[in-house]
C-alpha cells in the first residue's frame, strides 16, 4: 500500500458541505454551503504546498478535512497511498501520528495550566510512547530543535511571548515525528520580526527532518516565501495550482492576478488608483454565482463565464488553471488593454 515514490498526500475531488438549519426549531435543512466543492491536489514528501485565499474560501476547512477533523461529503483522501477517507478510528489514530498541526493562535492553543514540558510531551503520553525519563529527554531535544532553552520546560505558557509560544506549538507537533505538518495561518498572528524567525525555523526543520507542509494562509508574501507549490482557492474551488516561482512570476487566473495586485508592497510608486483593484467582495458560498464562481468580480469575463463552470486544466507550463480564457492569446491581449490586474507588470 505504501509507495515511497508516490505523493505523501493525495486529495481527490474533496467536498465538504455545511447544512444551514432553518424552519421551526431549526430542524430542517434549508440550504447548503458548499465550503469545499471538488478540490484535488497532491503533496510530495518534503515539499511545501500552500493554499492561499481570502476568508471564507474554504482553505481551513480543506485542511481540517485532510486531517479527518472535519467529516467529508465527497471525494477521497490518500495518505501515503492509503485511502483514509473512511478509516475506522483505531487505524485513523495510527495515521494521525504521521500528520500534525500548528494553529494560528498560540495563545488559545496551549493549555494555560500545563507546564510547557508537559504540553510538548502530551502527544507521546497519549500514544503511549516511552516512559517518563525518555519522554523528558525527548522534550529537551524537541525544545532545542525549535530554538527553546530546555531548562524552560517547567514554565507555563503565559511566561512566553507569541513567537516563543509558536515554537512550543511546533515542538509539540513534532513530538510524534510526523511526515506532514498542517500549518493553519501559523504565522499570521505574529509581529513581522518574529514571523520571519518562525518562517526560518519551519524551513530549517523541513530540511533537517524531511517534513512536508500543507501551509494555509491568506498572506501572499508569506506563501511566496515558504512554498514549493501553491494552490489559489476561491469560494470552495481551486482556481489555479502552480509552482510558487511560476505562480508569482506569471499568474494565469484573473483572481490570482488580482490578489497579487492588491498585496501590499514596499513600492511607494505603486500607490494610488492602480488598475486591477477588484470591485466588490467575495460572494457568500451559500449562494455562489452560476458558471465560474469568480465571474461576478472578474475584469475579463465573457458571456460563457456566467454559464459554464471552467474545470482545472493542465497548462503546458505544468501548472493548472480553471479559466475559460486561459491559454487564449486573443482574450488575454484584449484584456491587457483593459484594466486587467497586473497586466502591465
Amino acid at each position, binding site marked *: 500500500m505504501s509507495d515511497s515514490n508516490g505523493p505523501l498526500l493525495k486529495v481527490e475531488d474533496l467536498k465538504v458541505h455545511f447544512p444551514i438549519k432553518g424552519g421551526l426549531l431549526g430542524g430542517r435543512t434549508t440550504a447548503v454551503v458548499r465550503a469545499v466543492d471538488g478540490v484535488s491536489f497532491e503533496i510530495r514528501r518534503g515539499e*511545501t504546498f500552500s493554499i492561499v485565499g*481570502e*476568508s471564507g474560501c474554504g482553505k481551513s476547512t480543506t485542511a481540517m478535512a485532510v486531517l479527518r477533523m472535519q467529516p467529508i461529503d465527497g471525494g477521497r483522501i490518500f495518505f501515503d497511498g492509503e485511502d483514509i477517507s473512511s478509516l475506522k478510528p483505531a487505524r485513523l489514530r495510527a495515521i494521525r501520528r504521521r500528520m500534525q498541526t500548528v494553529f494560528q493562535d498560540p495563545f488559545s492553543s496551549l493549555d494555560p495550566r500545563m507546564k510547557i514540558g508537559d504540553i510538548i510531551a502530551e502527544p507521546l503520553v497519549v500514544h503511549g510512547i516511552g516512559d517518563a525519563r525518555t519522554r523528558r529527554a525527548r522534550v529537551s531535544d524537541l525544545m532545542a530543535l525549535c530554538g527553546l532553552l530546555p531548562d524552560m520546560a517547567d514554565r507555563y505558557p503565559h511566561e512566553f*511571548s*507569541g*513567537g*516563543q509560544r509558536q515554537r512550543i506549538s511546533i515542538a509539540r507537533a513534532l513530538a510524534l515525528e510526523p511526515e506532514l505538518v498542517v500549518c493553519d495561518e501559523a504565522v499570521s498572528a505574529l*509581529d*513581522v*520580526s*518574529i*514571523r*520571519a*524567525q518562525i*518562517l*526560518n525555523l519551519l*524551513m530549517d526543520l523541513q530540511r533537517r527532518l524531511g517534513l512536508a507542509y500543507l501551509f494555509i494562509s*491568506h*498572506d*501572499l*508574501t*508569506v506563501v*511566496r*516565501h*515558504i*512554498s*514549493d507549490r501553491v494552490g489559489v482557492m476561491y469560494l470552495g474551488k481551486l482556481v489555479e495550482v502552480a509552482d*510558487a*516561482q511560476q505562480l*508569482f512570476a506569471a499568474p494565469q487566473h484573473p483572481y490570482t492576478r*488580482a*490578489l497579487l*495586485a*492588491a*498585496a*501590499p*508592497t*514596499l*513600492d*511607494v510608486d*505603486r*500607490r*494610488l*488608483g492602480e488598475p486591477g*483593484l*477588484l*470591485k466588490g*467582495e*467575495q460572494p457568500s458560498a451559500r449562494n455562489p454565482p452560476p458558471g465560474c464562481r469568480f465571474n461576478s468580480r472578474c475584469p475579463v469575463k465573457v458571456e460563457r463565464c456566467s454559464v459554464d463552470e471552467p474545470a482545472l486544466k493542465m497548462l503546458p507550463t505544468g501548472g493548472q488553471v480553471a479559466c475559460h480564457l486561459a491559454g487564449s492569446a486573443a482574450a488575454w491581449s484584449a484584456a491587457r488593454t483593459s484594466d486587467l490586474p497586473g497586466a502591465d507588470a
Partner: protein
Amino acid sequence: MSPLLEVEDLVVEFRTERGRLRAVDGVSFSVDRGETLAIVGESGSGKSVTALSLLRLVGDAGRIQAARATFEGVELSGLDSAGMRALRGNRIAMIFQEPMSSLNPVMTIGEQVAEPLRLHKGLSRREARAAVGDLLAKVSIPDARERLDEYPHQFSGGMRQRVMIAMAIACQPALIIADEPTTALDVTVQAQILDLLKTLLRETGAAMILITHDLGVVARVADRVAVMYAGRIVESAPTRELLAAPRHPYTRALLASSVGPGAGAKTRLETIEGQPPDLARLAGGCAFAPRCPLVQTICHGAPPPLRSEGVRQWACYVDV
C-alpha cells in the same frame, strides 16, 4: 502656518500588577493639515496608545502627561471632558480595526452614521437621514439609500468598514485617527479601503494619523512615517526616504524581515534576533540594544537622543 497637531514630550504610564509601566516615553511629533502620518511599530511599541491618549481614550489606569499637545492651536490638556467630547468624532474622528465591535449591533446603520451629525451639528432626524444617504454613497456602498434601515450584521466586513469611514468623515474632521483600519480585512478589500481613504482625504483636505504594523500599508498611503519601538519614536522621515534608506537599525531590520515581493522563494529571511522588550523590565540605554546587530558599549548608557538631518530624525549612536 503652525501644524494642525503638535505633540511634545508625551508620556503615558499605566498602573499594572507589575508596577508602573511606561507605554509611551517622551514622544514628540507634529501633523500638518492634509498630511498623512503613519505611526509604525510592532505589538506593544506604544503606537496606538500614543494616538489614543491624545483623545483621552486609554482608560482610567493610564496617566497622560505632555509638555505640549495642541490641536488647531488649542491645548488639549486644558479641555474639560465636555470640551474633549465636542472634539471627538467632530474635529478629530476615529476609525478602528474591527468595525463589528465598534458598531452598535442593535442600531440601524442609518441611525449610527447620523449620530455624530445630530450630536455635533444639531441636524434634525430628517436632515441627518438625508446627509447619511449621501455619506454612504460617498464611501461607495451600493444602494446606499435603500440600506439605511439595515443592521451591521447585514453588512460584510468591508462594507462595515466603509460605514465606519462614513461616520468618521460625517462632521468633516480636520484629523482622522485610523488604528489598523484594514488589518481585519481581506487583501482585495484592504486595497479598496485604502484607496477610498486616500481619495476622501484628498477631497476633504483632512489629515490622518495611520497606526499600523504593516509597512506595505504605509508605502501605499503615508506621506511621512514615525517608527516606534518600546514607547519611543526611533526614526521619522518622509515615506519614500525611510523605505529607500532607513537610518535606524530597527527600521532596517523591520524592512528586511518584511517579506517583500523581491524576496526569493525558500531563502532564509533576515530576522531580528531575540524577543520584543518587556516594558516593565527595560534596562537603561537604547531599548533596541539587546537585539541590535550594531550594538556598542555606549548604547547601554543613556537612551540615544534624536539626531536630525533635514526632514529626517533618528535616535541612534551608531552611524549606519
